[in-house]
């Protein structure tokens, strides 16, 4: 048997495959797929998506309206309280009125069973529900490759919950999830026309200087969406587009906006508002696009999806995210050609990635980002059954990767250099998590990194002073931290 054949079957390959393309193994999984790890990962691509989500989650438009209503009510209550105060009410009545105000932090000295978490305000509650659904999908997935693809594309086309908390989760479910195995062009259209993206990148404020609204209000373009679409989402930086291209593309995108959430029936939904749209043809990247209303923008996006620079940009990001911060050029090239030859078929490039020998290198070169690491811990230990989702989100945030809150439109980095300084903090969190787990650390070691574990790793876990320390150390071993 050629040595190269052996690298792709067996427990070691199975473990690598699960860490690299998913969130690490669940108990017993390494052996279950050891006969054909590649096949097992590829099988994930044929499973239906979004099966993990129940019907309790709001659509993005519903969420936007609900939050708008909530905030309006809050404002009204505050004003009412002021009115009463001015009318000289007693302090007792005032107390009754201000009952709805959010109370302070819980008293730390109170025992657990009295610390029933008070219901957080609506925007936070919606976010927590979404976060929980997402984590459950990752930890309960068969392999988790689809979920990793969702997370990858969601970060590639990121928005920020800082700006628009209620829509962050629904955006991922509506704009990203259904398209991760479609053509890139479909995903791109879906993302750039989603109200959450339009609001995040300020396109809802953009209007053509020669549009009706622009003339009436003396306002003009906001270039953010156009620029980030070119720089981050498609072609990549310094790939041959000019400032004029950005500006003209921004003109094309004027009118792409949302119905304000204050509108009770359709608030939060996409609308193409002609009054904001800059009239006339626009030239982008050397091609002239006639003014066909909303289709003008769709045509530009379609061409951007097909641009060779996009294929190169996406190929590199894909390889870098899953395999190595410095991906082998041969792998990037395979992905680029797959993207180009299939018209950006995302299922095909996922297949290419898994089929490529480079993806099965035995060296674990990537450092799991905080979010992937936390999800891996939960998948292995099941501790999310006893840890409230809010605490898990706080843990992730403490590690620098707050869910759906990237600091900038280029999303969270996935390189080691960005995250390695936070490794000590992960130990404290691993230690805290370990307090919630009663399983045997040595069997968890076998389940998670058994075939990959060095003798030093085994010794470190086996010789720990307590189960808790053993578990915390296991979660911090290079084999578990990396993929």
């Amino acid at each position, binding site marked *: 048997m050629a040595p190269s054949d052996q690298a792709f079957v067996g427990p070691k390959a199975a473990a690598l495959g699960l860490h690299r393309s998913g969130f690490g193994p669940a108990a017993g999984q390494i052996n279950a797929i050891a006969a054909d790890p590649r096949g097992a990962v590829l099988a994930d691509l044929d499973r239906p998506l979004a099966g993990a989500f129940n019907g309790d989650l709001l659509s993005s438009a519903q969420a936007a309206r609900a939050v708008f209503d909530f905030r309006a009510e809050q404002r009204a209550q505050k004003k009412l309280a002021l009115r009463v105060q001015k009318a000289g009410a007693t302090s007792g009545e005032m107390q009754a009125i201000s009952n709805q105000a959010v109370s302070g932090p*819980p008293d*730390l*000295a*109170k*025992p*657990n*069973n009295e610390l029933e978490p008070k219901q957080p305000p609506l925007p936070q509650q919606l976010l927590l529900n979404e976060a929980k659904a997402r984590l459950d999908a990752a930890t309960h997935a068969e392999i988790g490759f689809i979920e990793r693809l969702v997370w990858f594309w969601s970060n590639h086309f990121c928005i920020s919950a800082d700006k628009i908390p209620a829509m962050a989760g629904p955006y991922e479910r509506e704009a990203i999830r259904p398209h991760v195995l479609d053509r890139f062009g479909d995903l791109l259209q879906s993302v750039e026309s989603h109200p959450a993206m339009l609001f995040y990148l300020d396109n809802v404020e953009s209007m053509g200087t020669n549009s009706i609204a622009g003339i009436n209000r003396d306002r003009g373009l906001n270039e953010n969406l156009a620029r980030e679409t070119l720089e981050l989402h498609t072609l990549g930086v310094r790939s041959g587009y000019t400032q004029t291209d950005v500006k003209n593309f921004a003109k094309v995108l004027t009118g792409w906006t949302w119905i304000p959430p204050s509108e009770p029936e359709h608030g939060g939904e996409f609308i193409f508002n002609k009054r904001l749209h800059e009239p006339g043809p626009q030239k982008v990247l050397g091609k002239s696009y006639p003014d066909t209303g909303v289709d003008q923008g769709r045509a530009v996006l379609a061409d951007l999806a097909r641009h060779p620079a996009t294929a190169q940009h996406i190929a590199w990001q894909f390889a870098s995210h899953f395999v190595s911060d410095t991906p082998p050029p041969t792998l990037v090239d395979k992905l680029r050609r797959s993207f180009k030859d299939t018209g950006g078929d995302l299922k095909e490039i996922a297949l290419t990635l898994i089929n490529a020998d480079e993806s099965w290198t035995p060296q674990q070169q990537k450092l799991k980002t905080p979010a992937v690491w936390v999800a891996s811990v939960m998948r292995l230990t099941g501790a999310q059954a*006893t840890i409230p989702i809010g605490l898990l989100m706080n*843990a992730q945030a*403490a590690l620098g990767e707050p869910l759906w809150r990237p600091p900038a439109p280029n999303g969270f980095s996935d390189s*080691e250099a960005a995250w*390695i*300084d936070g*490794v*000590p*903090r992960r*130990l*404290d*969190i*691993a*230690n*805290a998590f370990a*307090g*919630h*787990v*009663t399983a*045997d*650390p040595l069997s968890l070691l076998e389940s998670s990194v058994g075939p990959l574990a*060095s003798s*030093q*790793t085994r*010794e*470190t876990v*086996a*010789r*720990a*002073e*307590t*189960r*808790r*320390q*053993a578990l*915390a*150390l296991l979660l*911090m*071993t*290079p084999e578990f*931290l*990396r993929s």
Partner: protein
Amino acid sequence: MNPHAPSRREWLLASGTLFAWTYLPKLAFAEGRDPRFLAIILRGALDGLATAAPVGDPDWIALRGEEALTLAGKTPALKLDDFFALNPAMPNLHRMFHGGEAIIVHACATPYRERSHFDGQDLLESGLPKVGPSDSGWLNRALAGLESGGRINPKGSRVFAVGPVTPLIARGPAPVLSWSPQRIMPASEDTVARLLELYRYSDTKLASVRRQFQDDHDRAGRRYGNGAKARPSRPSPGARLFLRRRRQRREISGAA
């Protein structure tokens, strides 16, 4: 008290094994006493003979050799009775012993002789004769047993455990009151040391964050307001021994 050392309470909280058993026997309460039972499990290895040495045994020095504690010498052991003497590093325990506030029970152990730290510790806490899954610990069972005697106030007496998972010793039929700090406490220096040692051998890039481990703990110390100043990174004696032995083994085997 060394201002650079973590406070005892802070250390106990961080270790997560602090628990207390409270009961209010009516008689004691009536007398104005409020007795408390505090059990502390110290994990790691303790050499009993280096703690309470049988200095009265004529074969003691011959069998023990150079490390034998004696009543003579530069740092004499502290006399307990005609036979035993206490390690000179424990003046407080010595004082309590002679004040009738402490007793020492020597050379007691569970029947466990295998090599798993975790099983051994479980046995210590479960109080069962052999290793196996247990959902209760001896302290909880004792409390449940005493409770039925009418001497315990069932409303006031509960086992109180600190930490998100009740330690085994306190688990069982008697109700447990548990509390865990809302913040994330820093991992112990011992844990940090063990982890850095692992990285030293198997992942040079991760090992390069050694300085961040120190900085992070200093910041955590200030953030959690325990008053401790910058703590030097000192592994526990148990960890030091483990690390030294591993280095020796590697040198012998010629491994890098």
